[in-house]
């Protein structure tokens, strides 16, 4: 039989196939700029602050990026964090239980929200934008409504003096000093989640399925990939991470404001897109989402250290998002284009 050479190797293509490359360059550039203009930016205390800001976004950007690679959105991700914190706080307080009980109930609720999103998505066949917009509004309302019903105000009672608080605080809200650098617990959680998420995406069977359901759900289904189950698992991942961040908020501030979290869902999506995730799914990276979160952290704090007007933060971010989205779609077109064309 004749042997046909289908394609020649093009080393350049390899680089284009790294979704986080753009975010890496941007992160280096942002770091360089603030290192020059803000002398306090490179102090270890500042680095700790920047990393903390990045981690509170990065913890959620990991599952949101995986979900986007799987082809879906979760607009309820921001308020779900608040729901997880409120649930934990109120259950512990009302039952006068060890705070771990509240946290475990909260975990069940957070996973339940994820399961509900996934179930609604697969049962209705509606776009996830609409489904999770619905759950976003419902959770926003329920957070306020239930909190007012239970505690009479818009915030929860302090649980700082309750049993188990110390150990929960240690796990979710303490800080550790490594080599002169003081890092919050969330930074470690973030690091762990990035490694785990990246492993899942690139080194497991499930990761292969994430790319496939986002890239072409019909093709994935045709070769036997359980599309609905894969997407539901991704929503469960969002639920789990919302729980982690929610516990952090609770145990570091003792009380929770029930109106918080609105708008954060978009920040997570922006971080994922800056990190190289395609809006249309099937392409992206977990490490990229971490770089996106890091850019967020560096910019929001760097502007303060540089004593610039913080109003420009969002402007910069929007410009960054547009650039990243353009770059991503260009990369996608290149990847999909046939050889020699």
């Amino acid at each position: 039989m004749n042997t046909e050479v289908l394609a020649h190797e093009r080393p350049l293509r390899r680089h284009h196939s790294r979704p986080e490359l753009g975010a890496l360059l941007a992160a280096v550039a942002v770091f360089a700029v603030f290192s020059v203009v803000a002398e306090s930016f490179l102090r270890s205390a500042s680095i700790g602050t920047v990393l903390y800001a990045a981690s509170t976004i990065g913890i959620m950007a990991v599952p949101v990026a995986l979900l986007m690679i799987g082809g879906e959105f979760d607009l309820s991700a921001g308020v779900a964090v608040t729901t997880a914190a409120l649930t934990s706080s109120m259950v512990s307080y009302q039952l006068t239980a060890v705070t771990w009980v509240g946290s475990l109930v909260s975990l069940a609720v957070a996973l339940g929200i994820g399961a509900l999103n996934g179930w609604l998505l697969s049962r209705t066949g509606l776009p996830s934008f609409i489904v999770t917009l619905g759950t976003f509004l419902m959770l926003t309302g329920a957070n306020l409504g239930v909190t007012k019903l239970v505690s009479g105000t818009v915030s929860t009672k302090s649980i700082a003096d309750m049993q188990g608080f110390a150990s929960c605080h240690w796990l979710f809200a303490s800080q550790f000093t490594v080599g002169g650098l003081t890092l919050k617990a969330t930074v470690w959680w973030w690091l762990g989640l990035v490694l785990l998420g990246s492993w899942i995406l690139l080194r497991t069977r499930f990761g292969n399925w994430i790319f496939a359901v986002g890239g072409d759900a019909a093709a994935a289904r045709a070769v036997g990939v359980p599309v609905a189950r894969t997407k539901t698992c991704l929503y469960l991942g969002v639920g789990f991470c919302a729980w982690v961040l929610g516990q952090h908020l609770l145990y570091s501030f003792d009380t929770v404001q029930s109106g918080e979290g609105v708008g954060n869902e978009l920040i997570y999506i922006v971080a994922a897109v800056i990190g190289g995730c395609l809006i249309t799914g099937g392409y992206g990276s977990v490490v990229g989402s971490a770089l996106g979160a890091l850019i967020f952290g560096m910019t929001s704090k760097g502007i303060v250290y540089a004593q610039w007007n913080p109003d420009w933060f969002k402007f910069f971010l929007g410009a960054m998002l547009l650039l990243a989205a353009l770059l991503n779609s260009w990369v996608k077109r290149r990847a999909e284009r046939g050889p020699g064309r």
Partner: protein
Amino acid sequence: MTLLELTEVGKNYGAVRALEGVSLAVEAGKISCVLGDNGAGKSTLIKIIAGLHQHDEGRYAIAGEEVRLGSPRQALDRGIATVYQDLAVVPLMPVWRNFFLGAELGRFRLDIPRMRAITREALARMGIELPDVDRAIGTLSGGQRQCVAIARAVHFGAKALILDEPTAALGVKQSGVVLKYVAAARDAGLGVVLITHNPHHAYLVGDHFTLLKRGRMAGSHPRSEISLEQLTTEMAGGSDLAELSHELGRTDPKERPPT
């Protein structure tokens, strides 16, 4: 050996009768062609064989055992692989990830070097040389993608291969390449169902020809009993075409009586 057999199979979508009384047998090492125009019921037939839809009437047997397939997974587990015209692969994923999609090596720890090597070898065995299996499969041409999908089915031990219009969107040269791999799959001992509306492509490789028309069988011929001309005429509509040519009634201007 008969790999799969449909007997008088029918399918309704609500009040629409999509398929009625269709019989088809697929033998190992043979290519059975299903020909039909748009709306003849070809895709319904594929969906039944592939497990995407269930038949309402008749009998569907795989290796002699009657089945009702609930999902594409069940069809795959019984050795029936389907290569769809437009959704054979996920464009943005690398070739090796596509190759192993749904049959990955390792659950929590993919054996990536082995998956890459096996992909390269399996393609080479089918006569496809691809130096970089890391490139997105979308960068390959339509014919090349079909070939990868066929090689994948052969490698994963498919006994029967269902090909949905593999040459429909391709040029002459690309079609030839794909048909070559269809023949290679047959030589590897697979039973092939080749669905097409092109009698020329069908006749190049087919052992048996089943014609579908508006959801019914309009003919079933072994290769020995039909010529390409007959097949083309039947496919083009046979008596319908003769009627149409009469209705359009173009007469030679010279023969037209002077007005």
